């Protein structure tokens, strides 16, 4: 598992993220797998920013703490990362400006110090300067020839400086693999592409970290995929506009974080009672209220499951990696249509904004799925029964413009025609009809089920959800006595499959990015099965593989 852990740290506005993305692409095209990890404050200029790229011979799924190469663009770049470096770490800084005993001098200055650092990094990591040049041209081409030329020259200066002064500090070359079928992307992009693959045509949002980048991605793809992307006036407008688009027949999605989701909750209930398909991406960050905008957390699980007054069926997904984010995006579009209910996809800042390599997704997808009634034989003067009772709970629907299908979709409790009702029997029929969908949904052939990773039987079984999957999978090889149950779907709760997975296991611990153990509570609520031990982290940082390993070892004899 040979790998080199590279990091660049400096002030916001110094081009940290772009440098990190360029470094990652150079590594990918040179035959390596990359796991990217960013930290930044909710500031445009001045705060401390970092980008870490774990460059590896095999696909490592989570960031590691110990660094091999640290590029510090200022004093904080070293001082805030002392726990990540050891004697082996090469620390590079402009020691004339930022004297530091621990650092090797790299005379970076001016606007392009990040490019200078990239050139030097290529030398240390045995990456070809030509490969860096190729990515620099792609990244800065639109800024004009002069900018490209200057960047290429600066990268070469950095490379040559390192070669001349630090020939003995170069790392052994990693063995390249065939990474031609690998792509490098963020969770936001994976989810966005999956949604497009599932036929999403309408995306509305209001910017909020960590899903703002998904809005930008969708907007960038609007023309290519013939989408309509709308940055609406507020999150209430966002969800209601998407519900309008969905009612009129296109697959619609919204993206937000906890604060925006709070504003959307009445609209969520409207989707529930009116049985209007909608997909909601809830990208979590620490809260409540404004919280810690640019950090990560998993505090919204029970909120997503319970949000809105009264009761209606919904699907809640908790993808754990890029591949699951793509699948969740695609399948949500289909399920929302098929079952005419809201589907909530929960991600977090770590999954949404961090980048990694993954096997390329299939490029061609069939997006058609309809639950439309054929009304060609119906008289246009007969109101259509929008909410007719059925065994599956699903009522075929019609779309505006369709003759013979004239119907009312209603936020009031309604009768089978959609007209408002307060009659006891009609109310009960409709509530029961909606909840029949739960059984139908649970029989879906593509449903994402909880899965067991690692040995079939183990001394300790870790149980978790969401982005912790990548972290725990990376820790498992160090823990032969431990296995792991991951939930990519939490609601309706997969009671039967979970019951089968825990049979024969010995001891359990849940792993979550919140302070109260929300999956732990959910499991107890839905199964009566109590798990006593929990690894909980809620400081805004993702759980590290090292923390999982240390935690699990206390239970191993």
């Amino acid at each position, binding site marked *: 598992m040979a790998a080199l852990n590279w990091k660049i740290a400096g002030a916001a506005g110094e081009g940290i993220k772009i440098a990190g993305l360029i470094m990652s*692409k150079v590594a990918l095209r040179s035959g390596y797998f990359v796991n990217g990890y960013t930290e930044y404050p909710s500031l445009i200029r001045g705060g401390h920013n970092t980008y870490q790229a774990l460059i590896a011979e095999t696909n490592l799924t989570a960031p590691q703490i110990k660094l091999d190469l640290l590029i510090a663009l200022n004093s904080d770049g070293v001082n805030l990362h002392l726990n990540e470096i050891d004697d082996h770490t090469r620390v590079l800084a402009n020691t004339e400006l930022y004297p530091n005993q621990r650092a090797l001098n790299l005379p970076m200055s001016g606007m392009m110090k990040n490019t200078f650092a990239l050139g030097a990094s290529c030398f240390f990591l045995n990456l070809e300067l030509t490969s860096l040049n190729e990515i620099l041209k792609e990244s800065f081409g639109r800024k004009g020839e002069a900018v490209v030329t200057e960047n290429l020259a600066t990268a070469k200066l950095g490379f040559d400086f390192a070669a001349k002064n630090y020939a003995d500090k170069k790392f052994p070359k990693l063995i390249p693999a065939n990474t031609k079928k*690998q*792509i*490098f992307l963020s969770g936001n992009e994976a989810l966005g*592409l999956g949604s*497009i693959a599932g*036929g999403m*045509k*309408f995306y509305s949002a209001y910017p909020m970290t960590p899903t703002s980048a998904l809005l930008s991605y969708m907007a960038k793809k*609007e*023309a290519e*995929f*013939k*989408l*309509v992307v*709308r940055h609406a*006036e*507020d999150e*209430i*407008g*966002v969800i*209601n*506009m998407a*519900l*309008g*688009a*969905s*009612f*009129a*027949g*296109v697959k*619609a999605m919204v993206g937000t974080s906890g604060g925006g989701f709070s504003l959307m909750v*009445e*609209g969520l209930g*409207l989707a529930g009672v*009116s049985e209007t398909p909608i997909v909601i991406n809830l990208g979590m960050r620490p809260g409540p209220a404004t919280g810690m905008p640019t950090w990560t957390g998993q505090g919204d699980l029970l909120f997503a499951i319970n949000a809105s007054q009264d009761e209606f069926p919904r699907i809640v997904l908790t993808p754990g990696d890029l591949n699951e984010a793509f699948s969740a995006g695609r399948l949500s579009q289909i399920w929302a249509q098929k079952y005419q209910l809201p589907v909530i996809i929960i991600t977090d800042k770590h999954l949404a904004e961090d980048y990694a390599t993954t096997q*390329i*997704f299939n*490029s*061609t*997808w069939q*997006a*058609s799925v*309809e639950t439309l009634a054929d009304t060609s034989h119906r*008289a*246009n*003067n007969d*109101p259509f029964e929008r909410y007719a009772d059925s065994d599956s709970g699903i009522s075929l629907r019609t779309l*505006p*413009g369709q003759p*013979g*299908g*004239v119907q*009312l*979709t*209603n*936020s009031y409790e309604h009768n089978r025609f*959609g*007209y*408002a009702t307060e009659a006891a029997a009609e109310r009960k029929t409709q509530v029961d009809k909606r909840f029949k969908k739960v059984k139908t949904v649970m029989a879906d052939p593509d449903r994402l089920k909880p899965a067991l990773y690692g040995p079939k039987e183990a001394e300790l079984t870790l149980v978790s959800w969401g982005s912790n999957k990548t972290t725990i999978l990376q820790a498992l090889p160090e823990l032969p006595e431990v296995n792991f149950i991951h939930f990519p779907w939490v609601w309706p709760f997969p009671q039967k499959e979970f019951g089968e997975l825990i049979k024969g296991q010995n001891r359990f611990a849940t792993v979550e990015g919140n302070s109260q153990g929300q999956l732990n509570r959910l499991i107890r609520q839905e199964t009566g099965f109590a798990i006593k031990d929990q690894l909980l982290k809620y400081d805004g940082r993702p759980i590290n593989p090292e923390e999982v390993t240390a935690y699990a070892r206390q239970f191993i004899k």
Partner: protein
Amino acid sequence: MPDNLLNKRTTGVNPTWCPGCGNFGILGAIKASFDQLKIEPQQAVVVYDIGCSGNMADFVYSYGFHSLHGRALPVGAGIKLSNHSLKVLNIIGDGGCFGEGVGHLVGIAKGNHDMTVLTHNNFLYSLTTGQKSPTTPKGVKTPSTPEGSLDEPVNPLGLAIINQATFVARGFAGDIPHLTQLLTAALSHRGFALLDVLQPCPTYNQDRPYNWYREHIYKLEETDYQPTDRLKAIAKTMEEEKLPIGIFFKESKPTYHQQINSLKTATLISQSNGTVDLTSALSQLR
């Protein structure tokens, strides 16, 4: 295809409004206007807000979406973007449009989303038994303001004009032929049309019965007023002694959906199904 030449306009559900409610006149104007424009029931979507006006959802025969309080406009705008071949009419009250949902009015008017907003303005929250609304004049005593409202009222038409609405008019629920003309003009307008309707509420607003309105309104088209100047139009909205009815402002600008590349040649819904090819998007991720 229509079953007969006369389109069905109402359902079998009997209206639940109080006797003498201004909503009867507005419903009459909607039926007449749809007839004049030969809109078939499947070609229009009426989006209803919550309130006495929204209860019209059960009575009008067309595709309908009965939404949440204050949220009709974003629903209507979403419908239009999904299928811009549909005629979209929003039925909303003064509370929903100028109070709970005023942010949507501002956000959607300025984009010139192609739909009509018909506000049933009775100056009160009548469905909840007559509390003050955003348009209630200062000093009026209501159940939520027993000492008299301290707020100055919103100027609905001025708000729409300032926020770039491209068709702004006021009608009176007691003059169905005139209201029908205005509604037909609003529905025929390409762009965001606000038609604010002075609506008597015989149950809770006894200060302003039909006769009060008849004595306090005049028709703009009977004067030499031209609805082409934004500033003059705003001045007109501020007349209080006598309330003008008619078209205050009208201009022609590209609508929101006309400016979206994906919708230049076809509706979004017509481009919705089939195969999705991610090849080029995936190639950018290396």
